């Protein structure tokens, strides 16, 4: 098995009973594994809700004990969800503007040049974290230098080495966002904080709490996911030099290649919902107030939907993956993430001849019944100039 391989630990359970069971801090989760069942549950927001009383409960591992702020629009159900989503959607489409793409291209060229100059680099901290943090300044429309502080936090802002979740660490982020909101109130500009503070939803001005809920989500949702997508791409192309050459020769497959890599990596493994009434998933009873999750990573390897599901097929034309979710809560940051991937892959084809994984430590999520590789804790890669 190559170092870049991400295997599918869910196959047996998916093809058997169709679900898995995970005990998470004594609040068990029934993990829905098949592509169709995942889509069905994501669609049925009335029975499988995001916006329940207990904030943080739909996240796996649960954040009930470390967070009180409701994340918006993530932990709001329709119809309220739509009002918030309509407000933020245009802002999160800005990555389609050419000026945004030009700035993003500068950011990505800078990290690729640095890697090529150094020759050998630890990709998670030295490449992906920098790229992700600097790119986030564009999404928030704030100065580039602000990324230095986020980079200094390291990759473990929400998670520490020994415990899956760390309340003290999360507080660093929450206190930081509070301070930024106060700054924007005192001195409004054209950044996301100020724009949200000046906005109305259903005729009511956005409160500080609501603005904080959007910003926390933007930081949290876009961090590990993007870092893993970027790091895993480097690992994949290092292990498959022919694929990098192919992309160089056939830039027209760029779009299918990006979607395929995102499917294969599925940087967000799963997301939960709280069950509102006694019902069934996969012909199995689930009780009101219990939790289910939709396992995007498993659905994306469902052989009933994807031929050669465990292979990266760069020109896969029909690719109904759910890596960015499905339906109501589908990923708000997807436009940004896709642009990052597009510019990263383009820059690699322009500047990098080949890459070599020297050594790596895998990041394995412990999902009780399943262990899933989602990326790397660290990975040293040698970059060779074109």
């Amino acid at each position, binding site marked *: 098995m190559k170092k870049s391989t991400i295997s599918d630990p869910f196959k047996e359970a998916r093809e058997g009973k169709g679900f898995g069971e995970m005990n998470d801090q004594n609040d068990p989760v029934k993990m829905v594994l098949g592509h169709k069942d995942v889509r069905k549950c994501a669609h049925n927001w009335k029975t499988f809700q995001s916006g329940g009383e207990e904030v943080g409960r739909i996240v796996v591992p649960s954040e009930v004990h470390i967070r009180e702020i409701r994340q918006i629009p993530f932990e709001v159900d329709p119809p309220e969800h739509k009002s918030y989503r309509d407000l933020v959607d245009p802002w999160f489409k800005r990555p389609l503007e050419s000026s945004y793409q030009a700035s993003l291209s500068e950011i990505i060229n800078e990290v690729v040049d640095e890697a090529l100059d150094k020759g050998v680099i630890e990709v998670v901290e030295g490449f992906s974290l920098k790229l992700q943090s600097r790119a986030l300044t564009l999404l928030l429309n704030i100065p580039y230098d602000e990324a230095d502080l986020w980079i200094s936090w390291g990759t473990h802002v929400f998670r520490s080495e020994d415990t899956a979740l760390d309340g003290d660490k999360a507080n660093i982020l929450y206190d930081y966002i509070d301070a930024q909101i106060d700054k924007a109130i005192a001195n409004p500009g054209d950044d996301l904080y100020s724009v949200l503070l000046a906005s109305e939803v259903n005729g009511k001005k956005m409160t500080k709490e609501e603005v904080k809920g959007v910003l926390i989500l933007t930081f949290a949702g876009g961090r590990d996911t993007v870092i893993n997508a970027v790091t895993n791409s480097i690992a994949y192309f290092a292990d498959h030099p022919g694929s990098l050459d192919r992309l160089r020769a056939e830039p027209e497959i760029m779009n299918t290649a990006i979607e395929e890599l995102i499917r294969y990596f599925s940087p967000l493994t799963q997301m939960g919902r709280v069950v509102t009434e006694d019902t069934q998933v996969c012909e199995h009873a689930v009780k009101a107030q219990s939790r289910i999750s939709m396992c995007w990573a498993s659905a994306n390897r469902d052989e009933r939907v994807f031929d050669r599901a465990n292979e990266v097929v760069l020109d896969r034309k029909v*690719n109904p993956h759910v890596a960015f979710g499905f339906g109501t809560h589908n990923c708000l940051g*997807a436009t940004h993430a896709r642009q990052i991937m597009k510019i990263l892959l383009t820059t690699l084809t322009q500047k990098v001849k080949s890459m070599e994984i020297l050594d790596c430590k895998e990041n394995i999520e412990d999902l009780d019944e399943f262990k899933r590789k989602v990326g790397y804790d660290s990975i040293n890669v040698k970059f060779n100039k074109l």
Partner: protein
Amino acid sequence: MAKITFITSDGKTKTVEGTSGSVMELAVQNKIKGIDGDCGGVCSCATCHVHVKPEQWNLTGAPDELENDMLEFDENVSEYSRLSCQIKVSEDLDGLELTVAK
């Protein structure tokens, strides 16, 4: 050359011309409201959902199995729903009228 008409949620009608590519690409090039084409046409995002006029269903044909699956749990589906990234532009589509789902 095919002339294709889009009817958007604000009640506006726009007719555009295309020769190649997918109907989604044609719509995005012409900034048709409600067709975003987020996934670039791989059948993953459903932001290219349209309703075909029943009497023109034979022009586009029905969705294949995977497309049908994605539509199955989409908002606002009808018997005549298609993901427009899966419809190829060709002369045969001349005169087609599509109502944008979003």
